[in-house]
């Protein structure tokens, strides 16, 4: 048993923490208010070679491990949730499926620009009637003269405005009543493909969340990602990795909220003493510290299992579920400790609270995580 990070992981943590504090954090509040995408942050992350973190060096990646990925997502999210989710989705939803299921040619064409940061990564799965229930997918891809002709729409797709291509799921055939779902890589500048950036969200305002509309979008047959009919299986695997990212985000936002809360509690005086003297506040802070520690351990464990080539679906779900629920409750308490000030934008914790809620929803709601865990422990 060894709980220590490796020298490399420590160095990555130190570097990204400094970067996040100096480059990402200062304008986080402003970007959120103005709904401004952290473009310049991603330009700098690209220069630092961060955009292809876990992918092979031959495609321009850095060949780092999943624990390092979790560390980077945590630190970015601690500074700015919107930056954290953009990065996490870029890697685990945008890049990972190409890396896992793409051919060499596809990786050279589509994974390389993701690793260099020339394109952000995006993945088109969710539809109005389909998310974790992929059976509700309505988007279709029909073969016509060797091409795929795609029609349909996708919703809540992260990063697509900044992506040069999106891997998306579509019905490619039917076996009796059963839908055959496949993933297809579609360049975003293809005729008939529109990306709409119109959502009014509760939080994560600086991140890019879009609708995709596909009208007779035509791509060559070789744009199929992986095997035909395996789209469902592929996205389950993809989401397993993505959940580690969401868990890490939750740890980062919770850490930020906790740090603000403990600092405020020590400074804020009521009834002649700092409120951190009161047991009611102390117990809240103690619970926060405990939950963050536990959540981080679980995120690291899931990441470590993945790096060791072991099964990690259950642990990734547990990490995501525990960390995201802990994060919301920690952010709620952080606002509470700040009292009236906490409800104001200037104190940051209300932003953390708004950002946190998404983590209980994205990449499978808490309810779906419980379904995954229940299935993994043998319930039927």
């Amino acid at each position, binding site marked *: 048993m060894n709980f220590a990070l490796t020298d490399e992981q420590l*160095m990555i943590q130190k570097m990204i923490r400094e970067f996040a504090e100096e480059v990402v954090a200062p304008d986080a509040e402003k970007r959120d208010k103005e709904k401004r995408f952290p473009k310049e942050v991603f330009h700098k992350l690209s220069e630092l070679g961060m955009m292809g973190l876990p992918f092979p060096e031959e495609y321009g990646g*850095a060949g*780092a491990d999943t624990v390092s990925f979790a560390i980077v997502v945590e630190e970015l999210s601690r500074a700015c949730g919107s930056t954290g989710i953009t990065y996490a989705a870029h890697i685990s939803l945008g890049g990972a499926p190409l890396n896992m299921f793409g051919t060499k040619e596809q990786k050279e064409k589509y994974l390389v620009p993701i690793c260099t940061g020339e394109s952000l990564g995006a993945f088109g799965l969710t539809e109005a009637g389909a998310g974790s229930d992929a059976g509700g997918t309505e988007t279709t891809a029909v073969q016509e003269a060797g091409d795929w002709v795609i029609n349909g729409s996708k919703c809540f797709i992260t990063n697509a405005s900044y992506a040069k291509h999106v891997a998306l799921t579509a019905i490619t055939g039917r076996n009796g009543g059963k839908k055959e779902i496949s993933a297809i890589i579609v360049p975003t500048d293809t005729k008939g493909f529109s990306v709409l950036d119109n959502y009014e969200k509760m939080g994560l305002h600086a991140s890019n969340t879009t609708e995709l509309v596909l009208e007779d979008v035509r791509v060559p047959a070789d744009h199929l990602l992986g095997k035909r009919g395996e789209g469902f299986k592929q996205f389950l695997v993809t989401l397993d990795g993505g959940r580690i990212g969401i868990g890490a985000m939750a740890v980062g936002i919770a850490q930020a909220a906790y740090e603000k809360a403990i600092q405020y509690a020590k400074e804020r005086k009521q009834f002649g003493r700092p409120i951190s003297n009161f047991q009611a506040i102390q117990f809240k802070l103690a619970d926060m510290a405990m939950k963050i520690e536990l959540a981080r351990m679980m995120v690291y464990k899931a990441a470590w299992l993945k790096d060791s080539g072991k099964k990690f679906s259950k642990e990734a779900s547990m990490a995501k579920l525990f960390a995201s629920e802990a994060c919301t409750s920690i952010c709620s308490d952080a606002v509470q400790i700040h009292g009236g000030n906490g409800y104001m934008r200037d104190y940051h914790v209300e932003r953390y609270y708004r950002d946190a809620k998404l983590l209980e929803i994205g990449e499978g709601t808490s309810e779906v995580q419980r379904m995954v865990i229940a299935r993994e422990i043998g319930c039927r």
Partner: protein
Amino acid sequence: MNIFVILKRTFDTEEKISINNGKISEDSAEFIINPYDEYAVEEAIVLRDQHGGEVTVVTVGSEEAEKELRTALAMGADKAVLISNEDLDSQDQFTTSSILATYFKEQEFDLILGGNVAIDNGTGQVGPRLAELLNIPYVTTITSIKIDGSTVSIDRDVEGDVEKIETSLPLLVTAQQGLNEPRYPSLPGIMKAKKKPLETLELDDLDIDEDDVEAKTKTVEVFLPPKKDAGKILSGEIASQVKELVSLLRTEAKVI
């Protein structure tokens, strides 16, 4: 061009210093490359990229200092040398510069860069002492350096003014804030740092007898600065405030 950087592992600038049994407590403290030495590392990398050659980072320190050397390698230095101080009972600026001089006498070097001062002991002596021992010119607190053949043009910070200096290689310089903006180590840099050569030398390897480099200074006492009381805010008419301030400076602070 053979470029060397001498660097020191120091406390993180944000670390709170506490004293335990007459010694500065290092428990759970974070350590960094001395910030002025970081400017030196950055400048060395820039100069290498302009003129070719190799950057070697050297420290005299404990095994732990390997972390800071690896960080310099991740930033882009080519090689690192850790001269172990584990055999030493005491170490001061004399010790460090003597050890470094012994090391450098066996090296071919064109330029040695260091920080203007280390943020822990803050003596600013090791660089100049080393240059004296090697009998080469040195320029401290530089804010710009340009090399053309063997001519070196330097801007030196003198308490806010600039002194323009022309000198030649081989040379030792120490970096002042403003020389450059040190880069973050890139991720590929971090991944490659482990594979770059890091040599550890014992004093024996340099034929140094620890008695010969024994510290010339002795630490008599270590104490924290006195706690500052809250400041006084004067109020009222400006003219009367000025009067009050002057009288307080005379009678209370006794500085004029």
